[in-house]
């Protein structure tokens, strides 16, 4: 298996052979933590600054020159190993507090030190904001058929008011189309209410939330499941059980549409990290 090679991209667009450090994230300078090996197996060390924070980094020069890709691989095994190494370093730091950096961030050590010195106070504040908090991903789905049946049953009364009066086949056709449109509208409104209800319930327990574009899914049993909510929630570590319990409560209440959810975490707070911190470097 190959490793990762890379090049730094200079501001003028020139490329240079890679040297320097992979940067994983920001932690307390005095964090008492043993980190797993970084990308390419290089040892991870903390590069500190006067503001009391440190960047977790490993030597990028220790990494082999190319990424290889085996037959049928969607993701090169060596890339997988590298991103897993990045993630595992951050997860080890997570209990102590960490501001995650994007994978593949490579800088010269002198630049990193200058960056830390100039941005250290902001990084310390960001670290404090994310300390004792982690990211949880929630993807909630409902069964489309069950939802349609449920809405149809609830709509029965209003639909009966539009029942076809005496008339020809053309009128019956138009009325059927109208009913169909009413049902579709009702389903979409119901879906929006369900998603909103679920989001608000979880948001009450979380410190922050980010919604992502919902993707329709097909479950293993072939049922047509639609994503109601795909979101990341920043949750206090002490509130994790309460957050999980809240999801279960909401699923229970949403039984009529066969609500289901997957919960993954705890993640470093990737979705809740300020993206403008790095620009000032």
């Amino acid at each position, binding site marked *: 298996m190959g490793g*990762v090679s*890379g*090049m730094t*991209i*200079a*501001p003028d*667009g020139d490329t240079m052979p*890679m040297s320097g450090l992979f940067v994983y*994230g*920001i932690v307390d300078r005095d964090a008492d933590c043993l980190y797993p090996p970084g990308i390419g197996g290089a040892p991870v060390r903390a590069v500190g600054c006067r503001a009391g924070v440190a960047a977790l980094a490993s030597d990028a020069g220790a990494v082999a020159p*190319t990424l290889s890709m085996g037959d049928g691989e969607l993701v*090169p095994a060596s*890339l*997988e190993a590298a*991103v*897993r190494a990045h*993630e595992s370093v951050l997860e080890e730091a997570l209990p102590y507090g960490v501001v*995650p*950096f*994007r*994978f*593949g*961030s*490579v*800088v*010269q050590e002198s630049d990193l030190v200058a960056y830390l010195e100039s941005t250290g106070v902001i990084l310390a504040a960001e670290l404090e904001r994310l300390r004792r908090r982690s990211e949880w*991903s929630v993807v909630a789905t409902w069964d489309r058929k069950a939802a349609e049946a*449920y809405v149809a049953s609830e*709509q029965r009364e209003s639909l009966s008011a539009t029942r076809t009066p005496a008339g020809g086949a053309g009128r019956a056709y138009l009325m059927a189309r109208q009913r169909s449109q009413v049902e579709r509208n*009702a389903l979409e*409104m*119901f879906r929006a*209410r*369900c998603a909103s*209800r679920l989001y608000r*319930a979880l948001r009450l327990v979380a410190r922050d939330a980010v919604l992502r574009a919902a993707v329709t899914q097909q479950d293993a049993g072939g049922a047509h499941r639609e994503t109601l909510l795909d979101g990341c929630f920043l949750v206090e570590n002490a509130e994790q059980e309460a957050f*999980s319990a809240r*999801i*279960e409560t909401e699923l229970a*209440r*949403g*039984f*009529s*549409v066969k609500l*289901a*959810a*997957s*919960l*993954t975490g*705890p*993640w*470093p707070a*990737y*979705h809740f*990290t300020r*993206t403008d*911190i*790095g*620009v000032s*470097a």
Partner: protein
Amino acid sequence: MPQYSGGPRLDDPWGGQLDDYEQAPMLSRGGTSNLADILERVLDKGVVIAGDICVSLVDVELLTIKLRLLIASVDKAREIAINWWEDDPWLTRGEGDGEGSSHQPDRALSRRIDKIETILDRLSSHLDQAGELRQSGSGG
């Protein structure tokens, strides 16, 4: 289907009582080991520092990673004068496709088309010859 016992139902989809609940909640819990979940985060989120990078992979993989970074941070990158993609022939198709611009995929494609056309010409001439022979054979 269990029956709700409360509330206007479509207005309050969660208006039922928990006592009505008859099935185990469908909550699946997972850790942080799923590769897709990791990639979605580590390639697209987190602090991006100035002088950021590209992880160079072979051919297409290089393009993919570059695009991900580009999509995530194009505005910020421009602010700090990182504009490498504008000179990258894989990502940029400029107006002047002359000698100076190296569009390797285009050249490779052109070569393949030339090759195919040459083969077609040969086949066509073979077919013509065969037809002439057949005509002369039936005529004689």
